[in-house]
């Protein structure tokens, strides 16, 4: 039994083991989504619709990134001459295990006392460079923490002290990769994705949590001429530079041993001529990968031959439920491209497509397999093409939620539009995100949208007031019928999960991650970040 050491290590310091990770979300928050299903549905019921108005601020804590703060433990491969912003915004999950919170931003990691917000240790990574756009959080296994750095290292820390155990390169800095995802621990695998805006392939890897050795690598685009997906590309070189980054963590189904994750846009993103006319597999897809072998088991492509950087790397959600009168094991996704998909997660069979944003206009029809078919007229134009969604998407990385009590899938939605101008007339196109210039023209509105997967209809929408829109942050729901999320006005809000009615709010500043909940000393907490500050609310 490979996890025996965890069980015999004593009770002085609670650890994360497979049993805890497999539990439905409740007292702890031990992984990116809290549990493997991606539902962000907590079984906690102490905070109810009736008493949520009594939530009280327990503490706040403002992080200070950088080498000089909190006697930081210093690591990293950089020489210390380059520094980047981004370290002062919490844009990912915070782990809560046995009264300690584990928080990360680009190049920074902290352990924080969950009872008073005091910093226990701070680790700072001297970077080599790379895009510092955000960090989605850490993973934990035993006493070990794992997080990714923008310059593409997987770093493992001792959760008790913040001391570094080791770091391993994930992807070549020279190929302009950058890494934002939260790793996911499954059994003795640490699953690690990465990102890239040049034309390099999407890589998902499994590392050994003890040694940091690579166990397998999965590329989301073909790397060899005998890969059957090569025929969906102009040629092998195009495929090998085809993108498909997996920059948001996936979910895990222990029954099938499948890790299910969304892949990013094909590259070059906008001027796709050099990619050929094919579908460009397996970009903009939901892919199911055997967690022990790293082999692809099934895929479903939600944007064949995407031309708008509309990656499909949103968090999928695993749901067991009734579909057309028979029980199904499903995976549900609301994609950045404005369409919602229900698939059978055992086989990958398509069950339902719903266009959840009315203004979306990049596709001209839905094909027999439920896939939106791109309208080439809307690719881009020298004179400008008015397209919804704008680049940021109808939704983006902020995680959705699902409640088995209401049967509703909750997603932040922004009905945005932009003019896409073709600015590169070289018939070979451009590299990466080049070749076009996007100029926004605003939004027709932003919402929390509740989708009923059974009927394929919108059950309710809560529109954020105002004449424009914006990207709202992620969501979390509970067994007490509550739905929590940040709005566009700087409030953390509790909604009635049944109808979207507001029940409680606190104006804390622009919320920057998805709220979380856990139990501590017999009290339920609500934890949320607004930029550089954590807020812990509770019922006393």
């Amino acid at each position, binding site marked *: 039994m490979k996890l025996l050491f965890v069980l015999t290590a004593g009770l002085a310091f609670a650890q994360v083991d497979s049993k805890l990770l497999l539990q439905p979300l409740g007292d702890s928050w031990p992984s990116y989504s809290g549990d493997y299903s991606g539902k962000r549905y907590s079984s906690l019921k102490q905070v109810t619709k009736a008493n949520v108005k009594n939530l009280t601020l327990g503490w706040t804590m403002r992080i200070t990134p950088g*080498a000089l703060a909190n006697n930081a433990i210093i690591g990293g491969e950089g020489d210390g001459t380059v520094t980047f912003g981004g370290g002062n915004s919490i844009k990912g999950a915070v782990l809560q295990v046995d009264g300690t919170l584990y928080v990360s931003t680009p190049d920074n990691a902290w352990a924080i006392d969950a009872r008073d917000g005091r910093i226990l240790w701070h680790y700072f990574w001297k970077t080599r460079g790379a895009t510092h756009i955000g960090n989605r959080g850490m993973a934990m296994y035993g006493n070990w923490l794992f997080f990714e750095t923008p310059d593409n290292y997987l770093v493992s820390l001792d959760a008790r002290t913040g001391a570094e155990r080791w770091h391993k390169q994930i992807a070549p800095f020279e190929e302009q990769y950058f890494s934002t995802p939260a790793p996911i621990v499954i059994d003795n695998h640490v699953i690690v994705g990465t990102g890239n805006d040049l034309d390099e392939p999407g890589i998902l890897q499994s590392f050994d949590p003890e040694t940091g050795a690579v166990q397998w690598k999965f590329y989301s685009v073909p790397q060899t001429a005998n890969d059957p997906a090569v025929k969906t590309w102009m040629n092998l070189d195009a495929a090998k530079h085809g993108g498909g980054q997996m920059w948001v963590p996936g979910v895990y189904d222990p029954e099938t041993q499948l890790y299910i994750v969304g892949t990013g846009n094909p590259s070059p993103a906008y001027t796709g001529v050099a990619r050929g006319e094919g579908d460009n597999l397996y970009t903009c897809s939901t892919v199911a990968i055997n967690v022990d072998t790293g082999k692809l088991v099934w895929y479903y492509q939600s944007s064949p031959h995407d031309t708008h950087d509309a990656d499909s790397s949103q968090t999928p959600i695993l749901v067991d439920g009734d579909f057309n009168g028979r029980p199904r094991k499903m995976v549900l996704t609301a994609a950045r491209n404005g369409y919602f998909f229900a698939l059978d997660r055992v086989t990958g069979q398509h069950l339902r497509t719903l266009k959840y944003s009315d203004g979306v206009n990049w596709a001209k029809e839905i094909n027999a397999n439920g896939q939106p078919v791109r309208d080439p007229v809307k690719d881009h134009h*020298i004179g400008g093409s*008015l397209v919804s969604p704008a680049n940021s998407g109808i939704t983006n990385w902020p995680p959705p939620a699902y409640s088995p009590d209401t049967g509703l899938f909750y997603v932040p939605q922004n009905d945005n539009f932009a003019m896409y101008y073709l600015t590169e*007339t070289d018939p070979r196109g451009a*590299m990466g995100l*080049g070749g076009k210039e996007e*100029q926004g023209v605003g939004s027709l509105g932003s919402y929390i949208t509740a989708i009923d997967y059974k009927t394929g209809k919108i059950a309710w929408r809560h529109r954020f007031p105002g*004449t424009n829109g914006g990207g709202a942050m992620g969501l979390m729901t509970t067994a007490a019928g509550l739905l929590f999320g940040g709005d566009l006005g700087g409030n953390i809000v509790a909604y009635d999960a049944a109808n979207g009615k507001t029940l409680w709010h606190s104006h804390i500043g622009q919320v920057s991650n998805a709220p979380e909940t856990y139990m501590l000393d017999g009290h339920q907490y609500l934890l949320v970040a607004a930029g550089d500050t954590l807020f812990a609310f509770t019922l006393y």
Partner: protein
Amino acid sequence: MKSTVVKLGLATASAVFIALSVNPAGAQNAGKNKADAKAKAAAPAPLPTGGGGGAAYPQRPPAPADVRARGEALYKAECGFCHGDDARGGDMGANLIRSQIVLNDDEGERIAPVLTRGEGVEGTMMPKFSFNQNQIADLAGFLHSFRVNGYDGSRNRPETIVVGNAQAGQAFFGQRCGSCHSATGDLKGIGTRITDARTLQQRWINPSAGGRGVTTRPTTVTVTMNGQKIEGNLLRIDDFTVTLTQADGRQRTIRRDGDNPKVELKDPYAPHKELYTVYTDTNIHDVTAYLVTLK
């Protein structure tokens, strides 16, 4: 296995390239001049504070001019036919700027096996070349002089975005815009006042997006409380409060509880947004082609 030696350029060189970088995420991939790395190791750098800026992927320090010149001449004679004189690829050869082999190469050591050993590249017709080591280093110096950036700057920009039919644009304008706007009234001379056609197009599609020197009309708010109407310009609104600027310039924030009090917003540009799901790109291009003629 790549060396773990620090591969960023000299601090001074980095600063220069930061200043030159058009896009903050831009600049070329890491320079790897080993002499630079050694020189830098002598003076310990200050610890970063976590703020500040920097080139995400610093440009490589350029090879000496004579190396680049020899490399360019050799490249154009022997390689450009397939890979393009700008190394961005052609019908026969791959784009070398984004090539994983070139990106990971320092001074030709990764390029050499592809050229000289006849290993080629899987799935391609890459032939074998009998270059010597100096020639390969020259080629590497030339190839590493290109700017590499995922936010690839456009090199061949269209001369104008005006592609529509002015006559059709005038007809559309008459049907959809004429109730509020007039070519001889508010839009008289618009093509002279806004000389850049793309700016003009963006502005007529959604004037509230603003822009330099543009005054946009605010959304107005009417709050009905206790039978009284409070009016002003909208500053902010959420489910719990609305803030408006009153005629005397003072801000006033009013609590909201659902529909109480009644809050009505009037966005002067709402008719523009209503068109987003109505008109076609051709309509847009035609209207712009018409508006640029209003001198």
